[in-house]
């Protein structure tokens, strides 16, 4: 992996800082900062999934469950027990960590499609629990009137404030994941992906590292769930159903699994596609959505993050002198 460019991160930060002001001026972009909040929240999950799927080479079709655990921990903790939102956020993350450990240790021994099915099963089981334990979770109607967050006495209840808050968290997590991937642990993740036998021979405890990547991604998903409920002030089970898990995987594949940038790009792309850009097609929306995904898979198998390489390739093809 190329070193994550710190300069790129700064440019991203500057662009994000200017974004809401730009959206105000440019006609038609008025709702974009609002949508970007959700894209940011999803980015937190996709970065974790990128570490798990793209770098450590495992798969999870159950991450909606961890999003849900975080979301419900925050929702129940604040709305039902009147606990501090920040405390609930941490409790949710801890709970996710424990669940991820418990489920990850036996599950990550499985490979390929078996692992996919096992995580899928886990996700569905958690969903059913959210749906059925009406006394705690409110059942299918969910929980509403969940309080918002405040930071240093400042209420984060406007689009602007939450936009900056969420994207600051995204950048911090990006920095964290980038550091991690460039450390011995990140190299171990990638080694496990590259060749399990070679990784073992290098003294890497592969099951422990798989579980670590799984737990990290679970905690990030849980964090995203907490941030989600404190903004939308509502949670119901169908927000964290199986299709959300699949959507998360679609996000990272569309963005490009081998890159943290891809994780963010994919989250932004899919969030805008399904919440803004395809609305013009009305009833046709689902059809077009499927078609767009298919086109990206066919023409950009490395996702959006592979696009610069692709363009270079296309440009290169025009030049003479290449061996034919």
């Amino acid at each position, binding site marked *: 992996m190329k070193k994550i460019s710190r300069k790129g991160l700064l440019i991203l930060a500057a662009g994000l800082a200017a974004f809401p002001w730009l959206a105000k001026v440019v006609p038609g972009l008025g709702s974009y900062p609002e949508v970007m909040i959700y894209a940011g929240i999803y980015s937190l999950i996709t970065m974790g999934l990128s570490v798990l799927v793209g770098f450590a080479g495992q798969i999870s079709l159950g991450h909606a469950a961890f999003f849900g655990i975080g979301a419900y921990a925050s929702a129940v903790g604040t709305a039902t027990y009147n606990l501090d939102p920040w405390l609930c956020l941490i409790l949710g993350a801890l709970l996710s960590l424990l669940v991820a450990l418990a489920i990850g240790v036996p599950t990550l021994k499985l490979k390929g499609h078996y692992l996919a099915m096992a995580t899928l099963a886990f996700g569905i089981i958690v969903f059913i629990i959210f749906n059925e334990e009406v006394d705690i979770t409110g059942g299918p109607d969910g929980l509403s009137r969940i309080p918002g967050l405040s930071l240093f006495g400042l209420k984060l209840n406007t689009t602007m404030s939450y936009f900056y808050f969420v994207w600051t968290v995204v950048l911090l997590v990006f920095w964290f994941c980038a550091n991690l991937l460039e450390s011995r642990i990140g190299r171990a993740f990638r080694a496990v992906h590259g060749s399990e036998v070679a990784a073992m021979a*290098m003294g890497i405890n592969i099951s422990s590292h798989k579980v670590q990547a799984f737990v990290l991604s679970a905690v990030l998903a849980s964090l995203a769930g907490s941030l989600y409920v404190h903004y939308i002030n509502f949670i119901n089970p169908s927000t964290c159903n199986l299709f959300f898990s699949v959507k998360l995987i679609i996000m990272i594949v569309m963005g490009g699994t081998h890159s943290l940038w891809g994780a963010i790009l994919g989250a932004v792309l899919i969030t805008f596609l399904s919440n803004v850009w395809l609305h013009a097609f009305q009833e046709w929306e689902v059809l077009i959505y499927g078609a767009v995904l298919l086109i990206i898979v066919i023409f950009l198998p490395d996702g959006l993050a592979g696009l610069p390489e692709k363009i270079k390739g296309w440009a290169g093809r025009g030049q003479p002198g290449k061996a034919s």
Partner: protein
Amino acid sequence: MSQMILEVKGLTKRFGGLMALTEVEFGVQAGVVKSVIGPNGAGKTTMFNLITGIFPPTEGSINFRGQSLHGLAPHRIASLGISRTFQTVELFGDMSVLENVMVGQHCRSRGSLLAAGLRLPSVRRTEKAITDKAMELLEFVGLAEHAGEPAASLPLGDQKVLEIARGLATEPGLICLDEPAGGLNEQETQELSRLIRAILGRGVTVLLVEHDMPLVMGISDEIVVLNFGQKIAEGTPRQIQQDPTVIAAYLGEEEDDA
């Protein structure tokens, strides 16, 4: 000199009904090059897999520096000091040359996930030490100028050498080389032979599986010959070259040759 770094006793491995290894016994003295030869399918790679803990043996024992390796996971065996390379190159293809070697330092370094993500000063120090060590090894094997390239883009010969560097990065007492000369040309093979001697110079014992006879005969202190999972001979290169069973099974009969 005569201290045994590795002792293999009664080693047997069955895959289903197939006997991959039957009652194989030998020892490796510290500080030597010991080679294992035999036709393809004779059980050489299986033996490496047993020594490094990829599979458990069906029967028999393997002792390293007097300690039994029974039931140890491969990563534990690696951190005890046995390293290896692979017959079909098993590099981490989309990592750089340098990073591949840095992975080798994994079991000789510490640092938690949290610390790594936060890039604490201790992590920076560890990373610096790992990078320095890896660079030193790349210089040792002569791949320093390719440090930043993706490992998969190296020619096969360099990939084999890179695997050795990566193996050395685990700071082993014994390194098992699985056909390191496979696919190398004559000149590269000669360089490899020099490299193996240099590895000995670092105090690392070498266990070598190889088909390239000039290399094996030239560098080995002792040779074990396997055929159909059984040891059919053991001795110095000269003894082996003249052993009629070995000639029949492996080197090829020369009955009507001049």
